[in-house]
């Protein structure tokens, strides 16, 4: 991964407390897995930025290397990689996601 791509990803993660790398946008997801995570954040009324990797090939490939994670979506909360679709769904269902949002002082609908 080149430095420019790394800087681009760093900037998104640093500027957005909740940053979701996804296929499509929160309003028009292009993949069921991206939609699932985006919907969870919407239900929790979390303020998040969706980064559409389909608009940027560098980010699309770079983020996999950056997180050492082969799939998209990928969720970052306060610069910490939380996981992909399966993990976020599980954390939502067992209440862990809310706990993390609370611990990190982020506003959401409880």
């Amino acid at each position, binding site marked *: 991964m080149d430095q420019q791509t790394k800087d681009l990803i760093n900037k998104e993660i640093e500027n957005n407390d909740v940053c979701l790398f996804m296929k499509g946008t929160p309003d028009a997801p292009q993949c069921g*897995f991206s939609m699932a995570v985006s919907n969870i954040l919407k239900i929790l009324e979390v303020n998040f930025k969706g980064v559409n990797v389909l608009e940027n090939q560098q980010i699309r490939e770079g983020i*996999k290397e950056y997180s*050492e*994670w*082969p*799939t998209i979506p990928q969720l970052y909360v306060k610069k910490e*990689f*939380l*996981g*992909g*679709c*399966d*993990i976020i769904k*599980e*954390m939502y269902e067992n209440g862990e996601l809310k706990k993390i949002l609370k611990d990190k002082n982020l506003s959401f609908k409880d």
Partner: protein
Amino acid sequence: MAMDLKEIEKHIKEALPDAIVEIQDIAGDGNHYSATVTSSQFAGKNKIEQHKMVYNSLKGKMGNELHALAIKTKEQ
């Protein structure tokens, strides 16, 4: 670009010999699978590390030949 269910199971078991692997072809198209993997090797690891172990067992096929594999990991 598709991968056989048996092949996925084989890869996971090679990396995690004690694993109990249950795989379902969720869309019936040989391209969207769901796997539940139970192994003692997950002990003491967080979910991200556990899922990475499964991804790593697939040796780069995840996201390429294998489009979609939903993973659930359990400690034994």
